[in-house]
């Protein structure tokens, strides 16, 4: 039985989809069989970030409604052959998802894969609740910023009450993935510090992803940063986070990009 992990946040735009793709690719590169499910029905993005948008035929809704078989809807990544995507439907909305449908899809995927990563839509409504419902573990993507942290706190409350695991009285392991962290700005007090975020959320940290231009650059060419720019500081941080998710003990370091001589001379003022 594979592990079902929901990647969620409450707030939109904090990096759920980017992180799902980057973590999924990093896990798959270790040889694990990984499938990513896009739960953002109506606003699918994960196919774009993985560069699979030209190969989508069937989607999650088709499978839950029995129109297509799971094997027909799964898209194998062209770069890492243990990485698969189950795309969302762009033409439907979240009401098309049923609890039973999601349960059976996740159960059959967990049977065949080592990791099932559920990319949750933003918000706390139906789509987000179905994405987390059958998860074994949760990765909560948070930016070092007050509204994101409060929304994450709200999501943690839901993870502890609305998931199948919680209803059975079991506790769900939860991890904070702090993204878009800029140590220079945090030092100047323009961002919440890592300590502040962890104190408010009182949940263990999975990783700190530094703010990096490489992340957006990679998304725009349809490749997770961990595949597209493996030497990038954000990519390394994602690889470390993926190893921690697999249970490895990886020391937490603040990854920084090596600056050029020019940057070192003049870059201090440029944020």
């Amino acid at each position, binding site marked *: 039985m594979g592990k079902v992990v929901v990647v969620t946040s409450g707030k939109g735009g904090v990096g759920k989809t980017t992180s799902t793709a980057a973590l999924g690719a990093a896990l798959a590169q270790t040889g694990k069989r990984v499938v990513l499910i896009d739960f953002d029905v109506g606003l699918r993005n994960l196919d774009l970030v993985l560069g699979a948008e030209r190969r989508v035929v069937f989607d999650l809704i088709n499978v839950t409604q029995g129109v297509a078989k799971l094997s027909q809807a799964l898209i194998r990544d062209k770069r890492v052959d243990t990485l698969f995507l189950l795309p969302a439907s762009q033409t439907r909305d979240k009401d098309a998802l049923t609890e039973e449908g999601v349960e059976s899809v996740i159960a059959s995927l967990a049977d065949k894969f080592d990791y099932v990563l559920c990319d949750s839509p933003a918000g*706390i409504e139906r789509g987000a609740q179905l994405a987390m419902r059958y998860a074994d573990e949760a990765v909560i993507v948070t930016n070092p910023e007050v509204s994101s942290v*409060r*929304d994450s*706190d*709200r999501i*943690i*409350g*839901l993870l*502890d*009450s*609305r998931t199948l695991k*919680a209803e059975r*009285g079991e506790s769900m392991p939860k991890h904070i993935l702090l993204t878009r962290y800029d140590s220079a700005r945090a030092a100047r007090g323009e961002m919440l510090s890592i300590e502040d975020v962890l*104190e*408010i959320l*009182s949940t263990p940290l999975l990783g700190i992803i530094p703010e990096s231009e490489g992340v957006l650059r990679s998304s725009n060419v349809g490749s997770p940063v961990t595949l597209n720019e493996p030497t990038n500081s954000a990519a390394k941080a994602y690889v470390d986070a993926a190893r921690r998710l697999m249970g490895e003990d990886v020391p937490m370091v603040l990854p920084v990009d090596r600056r050029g001589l020019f940057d070192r001379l003049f870059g201090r003022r440029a944020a």
Partner: protein
Amino acid sequence: MVSAAPIQKKAIRFHARSFVAFALAPEAPLSNWLQGLDRWIENSPGFFLGRPVVLDLNVLKPSAGEVAGLVDELAQRGIRVYAMELAGVDDLGPGLPPVLKGARPSTLDETVTPPGQKSAPPAPAEQPQPEARTLILETPVRSGQSVFHPHGDVIVLGSVGSGSEIIAAGSIHIYGTLRGRAIAGAMGNSGARIFCQKNEAELLAVDGWYRTADDMEASTRGRPTQAYLENDVIWVAALD
């Protein structure tokens, strides 16, 4: 077409349910009272959302026409009146909530705990009601959660998140950081207090008197703090 399905005989059973309702007791002049209510709602938007509200009309003693107007005024504020209390009146006519009798001031044995938290097992019905019971929460109270304990004190071992609330009949003790709102003595208890290890509260209230973050003593921010009532004034003071 007609198929004779075996008819199962099932006894009709009535299940008793008890809920704790918030009683609003309007006073004359009504416009002043509504202003006060508006101020409360402004500070606690959504407070009455989904909560059963009963209108206690024994102070105001309005006419049937006035009642309809009052119910409308409350509906405009998002408050749905479930029932009314007015001594000596059986019914105020159709279209108005029913008149209830025999209410007791919050002697119900119920606690509302955040989902996922196990509520205390109900006390055996035969035993006399305990005076007060303490609700102990061992996990943090997360944003969006509402803990309502109409009996006694609430103790939270973790933090109380921004955008969450604790409402207790007695005192509230928080051994983490209080970032949400704490409402002590909610059913009327001027002796109730709020204690927290670190005060980042959005709102503190004791027995209906409240302070928002903006009008708390700045010196208590981030420090161990208590809130208590003295001569109908709520004081927020550092403990150290």
